[in-house]
Structures are given as C-alpha cells and as structure tokens.
C-alpha cells in the first residue's frame, strides 16, 4: 500500500489510524474526508495504516509492533504531542498510544476494546464467508483455527492473518474504563453501533457520544456514507478541546 498522505503545515497535529483488513477499504474514504475536514480547520494531518506498503494478502496484527509503528508515526509528526483518531482496531492502537504518552488526546470511533472478542468476530466473518463460497458452513470455528495453526495463517475475507497475530490478540489486554481512568480527561469515544458499550463508557464518566445516523460502508454495504459530516464535526469539536 502507498504511504499515507504527507504531513502538511499547521499548528495542531492529528494522526488518523485506520482499521486493518477489509475494514480498511470500507472506511478509507471516511478517513480521507476526515483528513481534509481537519486540515481545513488548521490541523496538520497524517494517516497510518497496518496495510502500508502491502501488495499481498498477508496481514500482521501484533500489538506491540503496531503500537511501536503508531508511536513512531506520532513522533515523526514532530512538535508538541499530537492527537490521535482511530477506528475499530485502529482505536485500540490509539488508546494505547494515549496511555503510553505518545499522544496528548485521543478520539476513538467504535473502538475494539477486547482483542479476544475481536478474534471471535473475525472467526464469525470467516464462517459467514463459507456461506457465500460453498453455500454452507463446511468447517467449524475449531477446524478453521486448527487449520490456521497448521498453515501459519487464518483466512478472513481473503486476507491471510498470521497465526502469530491470533496468538498475540488472544493475550492482548482488554481496555476498560477502569484501566484507562487516568486518561479520562484526554479521551473521547464516538459510537454509532455499539450502544451498550457507549453506555458503559458514558456511565463511567468518560466523554462518550452516540451518533445513530452515521453509516459507513463498514456498517452495511447497502448504504455507503463516505462523507459522514456529523462524525467529522463531533471529532473536530473534541480535538479542539
């Protein structure tokens, strides 16, 4: 994949962290649009993705390595501590960057907070893929995971996610309101799908908002909103605090 857009001049800096796998493609335009929206308001914007420079179907999601790459991108943007915006698994990386002091502020979109649960979601996607490929589910979740251990990768949506990634995600820590309580003042969360998760964070005293009108192609390919202005505005307002 090509490198993200270059950093442009501006006093406030923001790094936009995309999710991996097919969610990357389905949300890319929303990130491109957010970048333009923030730049128009004076931000200097860079984008980060795990797919950078990849032209094959392989994917590596080892949290420590990705976290180091995000931290490097944040430091490369230079100057004062920048803000970070992340979606889904990108939001998991963003909150780590905040907690480790690499970013001054984080806005999370529909964050993955439990990597083990994220793995379960990927397995569900792989099971659903069988319906469109074979017309039935031929291989159970256990069989798919056994096959991944044998071949070294787990096939999801056509991507080869390494077994090392699965192992790492299984043991990566869950992010809870309690575990990041120290970051409460510099963390905002925006949801449009996960109402219960939104309520949990809001009730724990975090700045959390629910925007039911947002629909990215990740949510449902039947309606493709690649320019979700309400989401951009809510993000901008939180970055400017």
């Amino acid at each position: 994949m090509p490198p993200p857009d270059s950093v442009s001049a501006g006093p406030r800096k923001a790094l936009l962290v995309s999710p991996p796998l097919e969610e990357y493609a389905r949300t890319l335009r929303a990130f491109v649009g957010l970048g333009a929206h923030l730049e128009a308001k004076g931000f200097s914007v860079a984008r980060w993705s795990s797919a950078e420079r990849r032209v094959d179907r392989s994917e590596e999601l080892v949290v420590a390595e990705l976290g180091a790459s995000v931290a490097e991108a944040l430091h490369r943007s230079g100057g004062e501590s920048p803000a970070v915006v992340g979606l889904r698994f990108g939001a998991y990386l963003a909150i780590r960057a905040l907690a480790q002091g690499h970013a001054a502020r984080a806005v999370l979109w529909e964050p993955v907070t439990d990597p083990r649960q994220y793995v379960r979601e990927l397995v569900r996607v792989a099971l659903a893929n069988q319906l469109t490929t074979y017309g039935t589910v031929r291989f159970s979740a256990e069989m798919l995971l056994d096959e991944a251990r044998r071949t070294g990768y787990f096939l999801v949506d056509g991507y080869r996610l390494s077994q090392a990634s699965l192992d790492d995600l299984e043991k990566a820590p869950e992010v809870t309101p309690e575990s990041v309580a120290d970051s409460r003042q510099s963390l905002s969360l925006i949801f449009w799908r996960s109402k219960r998760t939104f309520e949990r964070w809001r009730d724990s005293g975090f700045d959390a908002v629910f925007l039911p009108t947002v629909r990215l192609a990740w949510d449902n390919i039947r309606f493709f909103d690649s320019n979700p202005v309400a989401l951009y505005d809510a993000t901008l307002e939180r970055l400017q605090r």
Partner: protein
Amino acid sequence: MTWTPCSFRNRNGRELRGLFFDPPPERPPFPLGVVYLPGFVLGYSAVHRLGLHVLDRFSQAGFPGLVFDHAGVGESEGDSLCGAHDELSRHVASGGMLADTIDALGYFGSARPVERMLLIGHCGGALTASYAGAVDTRVVGLALLSPPALEVGEPDAAMPEGAVNQRLRFYRTRLTSGRSWTNLMLGRTDYRTLAKTMLSKVRITVGGAPSLRLNPRLLEAVRTVSRRGRVLIIAGDHDEQIRELNEFMRAVTGQGVTYKILPDTSHGFVTDESMSLLTAELDAFVHAAASLEANR
C-alpha cells in the same frame, strides 16, 4: 518493491491517485500494460488487495501495471460518492466511472512504454473495463471477474434468484443469534434488503424466476473487444448472479470470448483455492495475449 505512487488530473481537473507497478530493472518491459479496475466504489485496496496482488504478479513477469482511484473514491480528489448500494451500482453500470478510466488509460500510455493494454475488472470494475475497452482501441484484452450481467433496474426490481437464495441462507444462520434479533428489534437491520429478499422469494416461488434483462452495454462492449482481441469472463460457481451470467454467455457466444466458472468460489474470491484458480486463469490469459501481441 515494484510499485510507485502516481497521480494525474482527469478532464475535470481533479487529481486522481494511483500506483504504477513496474517490472524489475533487469526485466525489459513488455509493451503490453495491465490496468486493474476494482469493484464498486471502495477504491483499489478492496477486495483483499486483489488488484494489487494481480498487478504485482504481472509486473514481476514484465508487464507494467496501473491501478488508480476514480474521482470521489479512495485517495483521489472529488466529491465523495455516497448513497444506497443500488444507486451507486446504477451509477457504475451507467458508465459513471468511464471518463476517468479513459483519462487513466491515456495517462498510462503517456507515462509508461505501453502500446497496448489489457484491462482486468472486478464486479462493477468489470463493467467499466468493458465500456472502456469498447472505445479505446489500444485495449486488446479484457478479463472480467464476476461481472454483474443484469441491467441495474429500479429499486423495486426483483433480485436475481441466486442472490435471494444466498441471502436466505445467511438469514437462516442468524435465526439463533440473539444479537441479530436484538438488531432487528432496535432498527439496526437492513429492513429494505430483508423485505426485498422475502418478496422476491415469494415472487419466484409463485411465478417462477423473473425474466432477465441483460446489460446491453456490457453485451455490446464484450462483442466489440472480442473482435479486436480476447475476452475472458471468470465467475465463481457460488456467485449470486451465476445464473444470470450463464444466460449472458449464451447471448454473447463467439470467438474470442472464454468463460470460466471456478468451483467453490464466491463473488469475491476469498479462499486460497479460489485465488489459485483465478491466478492461473489470469496468468494464462495475460501470457497468451502477450504472445499474440509479439506475433502481431
């Protein structure tokens, strides 16, 4: 690494961004370029970087390649394309991505030593590839992956039978899912598709499968290019429009058109087996086209 970011302005002055895939320096390039056109409006990394994988492979074999995002898509400038899937499908099927594609072919021919071109398109990209091939005589081959063969009708048009059955299978698996029922109750289900699926199933059961309205522009484009070069059409046996594509192929028969149905394969070629079969077919197609060009 063989790719290089590139950009050019389309006829409306919008900067379109893409990637060149160049053969390694030790490999003299063929004067035959390959352009990949992704499906729908998600940009060139969808689906599972299929186009990047294909172009990288062919560039290693000596064929220069180009992939790019149309205006309003992915990394390129332009107003973002938004809306319901049917609306955007109609936009693509009616040639909404054609002008940028023609501009891209012109740019490719001027920026790389390419005299003739092969276009590989997936889904909606296959439609655009065929339309472009029909009007640009430098195009000597089309590989159309999972092309939607039907004319995209009004929103109330019946769904293809394969699509209905595929969605019903999916809904059946969700019957025991508490989360799915919760989504249904809370209004987070795609009711329109659900209703359309049910209604289409009733119609098919009562009155038989609806008569097919094949995309006449696709038909004409395939015929046009097949007179000039080769056309390869590839689909999976579980593509939701496979029945309609079979019907399309009955209407398009002629020399220069090859039709391959891959076993245990979906619309998106998401398994390793599907990708191996697809890659083998594309390899044979591109190398045969190169031989033809060399003897021309």
